[in-house]
């Protein structure tokens, strides 16, 4: 006999939001990633499991290069290590011609370990230790100075070495789209950056050869890059006229949006996210229009990270428990729009009718607990990943709260995702999760999962194994007086003489 898949018997009161069970549409099943069945990935590598598509990584970097190289003669992309510094990921981008962009001595070491020579490393960040600067200088890295203290530190180093050091200077620009990132660099709007360039030229052995401006992150308005680029071009011309610098390169940083969806974002990513051509046009047109005629165009560096790696990353996870979540009597979602009045049930009760008692007098919502938590999905603080069932399930979507596995009430991956009825053991796939979740995840309560990469030939490669106890407690030291363990039960049973 052909047995049907089992879903528990459940009942929910219908309220405004669930009256039409078709309103949530259909969520497609994702039963394979790059042609490899999700069930096979779990069987081989366990759940949860991060999966990266090498084909998608290569497609993205080739796409963004094509967009820029078709409109500008001299462009180099630098892989943003902080977005994802798994060595396998970095090496894909390096194979595709990207140099490295790092923001700490640790990342610098990783880039060198991945075979990138110092002169192909862009060294960013608001703090660089003297030791890391010394190494970067000796290896010819492209240091982007962020603040006066760093200029002074580099000036001392140049005196000590009796040599000039070529650097770039980081600036910030008010693009009118969001709060200015004034944490980084010098203001290009009020003359601060120009003054520092001139001062540096007149008082140190540093030679400013580039200007760096990273306007922000997840920029949904490509026009912000046009504003920033015009300001940077203007600064380069002013600095040259003032004798402060001979600018050879412009670095417009990163910040291109991926197809992730921000909390509260109305339009779907397919409509809201600019294409690479939009960013390329905004930046390159602004340079070409503003750069003095007859002067060779400056080299252009770009450090985009999220837009190149986010969609290559998936997280497979499994349902470990199913719950019915009791929701507040008023419709919270509609209340936000001033329409969250009393429910039908409470109105009926007001007329002495309505035998609806206790929990079912309120709305209920499906809820599932997954075997992955927000400690490995740091970006869920800002973005809501799509969640797809990995197997064919019961028809009909329900608003579903998706909890993580942590013993913490804040561990909510999605407050409301459209999912079919699921049961313990069912697998789901979250996407896109490739940006920042590797580098910002924290070990907490459970071991972090394995990471695999699927190559274009559908071969699956383990690129980070699942953690084990020694990974967590390896750096720990136990003081001598605590080194000898004593069984608590023995201590309880022993009587003082």
């Amino acid at each position: 006999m052909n047995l049907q898949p089992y879903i528990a018997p459940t009942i929910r009161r219908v309220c405004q939001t669930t009256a039409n069970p078709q309103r949530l549409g259909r969520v497609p099943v994702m039963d394979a990633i790059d042609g490899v069945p999700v069930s096979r990935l779990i069987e081989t590598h366990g759940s949860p499991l991060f999966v990266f598509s090498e084909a998608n990584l290569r497609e993205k970097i080739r796409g963004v290069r094509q967009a820029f190289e078709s409109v500008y003669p001299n462009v180099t992309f630098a892989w943003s290590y902080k977005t994802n510094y798994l060595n396998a990921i970095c090496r894909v981008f390096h194979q595709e011609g990207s140099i490295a962009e790092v923001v700490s001595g640790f990342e610098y070491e990783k880039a060198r370990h991945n075979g990138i020579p110092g002169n192909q490393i862009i060294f960013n960040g608001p703090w660089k230790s003297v030791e890391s600067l010394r190494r970067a200088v000796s290896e010819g890295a492209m240091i982007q100075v962020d603040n006066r203290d760093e200029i002074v530190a580099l000036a001392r180093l140049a005196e000590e070495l009796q040599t000039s050091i070529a650097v770039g200077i980081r600036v910030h620009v008010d693009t009118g789209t969001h709060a200015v990132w004034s944490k980084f660099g010098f203001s290009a709007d009020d003359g601060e950056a120009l003054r520092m360039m001139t001062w540096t030229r007149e008082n140190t052995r540093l030679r400013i050869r580039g200007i760096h401006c990273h306007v922000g992150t997840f920029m949904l308005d490509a026009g912000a890059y046009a504003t920033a680029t015009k300001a940077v071009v203007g600064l380069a011309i002013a600095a040259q006229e003032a004798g402060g610098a001979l600018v050879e390169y412009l670095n417009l940083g990163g910040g291109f949006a991926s197809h992730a969806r921000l909390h509260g974002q109305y339009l779907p990513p397919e409509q809201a996210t600019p294409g690479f051509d939009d960013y390329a046009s905004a930046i390159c047109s602004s340079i070409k229009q503003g750069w003095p005629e007859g002067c060779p165009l400056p080299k252009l560096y770009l450090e985009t990270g999220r837009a190149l790696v986010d969609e290559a990353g998936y997280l497979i996870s499994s349902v470990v428990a199913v719950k019915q979540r009791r929701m507040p009597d008023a419709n919270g979602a509609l209340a936000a729009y001033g329409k969250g009045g009393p429910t039908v049930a409470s109105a009926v009760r007001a007329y002495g009718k309505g035998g609806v008692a206790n929990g079912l007098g309120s709305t209920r919502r499906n809820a599932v607990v997954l075997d992955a938590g927000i400690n490995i999905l740091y970006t869920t603080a800002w973005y809501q990943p799509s969640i797809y069932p990995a197997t064919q399930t019961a028809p009909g979507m329900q608003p579903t709260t998706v909890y993580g596995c942590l013993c913490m009430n804040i561990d909510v991956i999605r407050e409301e995702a459209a999912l079919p009825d699921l049961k313990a053991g069912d697998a789901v796939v979250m996407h896109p999760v490739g940006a920042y979740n590797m580098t910002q995840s924290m070990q907490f309560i459970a071991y972090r999962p394995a990471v695999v990469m699927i190559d274009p030939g559908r071969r699956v490669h383990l690129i980070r194994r699942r953690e084990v106890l020694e990974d967590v407690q390896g750096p720990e030291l136990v003081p001598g007086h605590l080194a000898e363990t004593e069984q608590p039960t023995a201590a309880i049973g022993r009587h003082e003489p």
Partner: protein
Amino acid sequence: MTGETDLTRLEDLMLNERGFVFDPNTGESYQVSGTGLLCLRALQRGASIDEVVAQLVTSHDVERITVRCDVDAFLWDLKQLGWL
């Protein structure tokens, strides 16, 4: 005041194939899962709890203990509604 006569009997409920349940006494509507619909219909026919469980186990890929646990929780919900 809610009197005895206001309570809905199981057989009064109106069900459709997609799991939509209408309680004519209160005017409330409910959505049940496929197995929930199977349970409600069986109970309307006068089936015992053991018979409901057996029917689910026979037709679904699931252990009996799981079904028993879930059906008991479902019946508890129905009692909260005054249907049992």
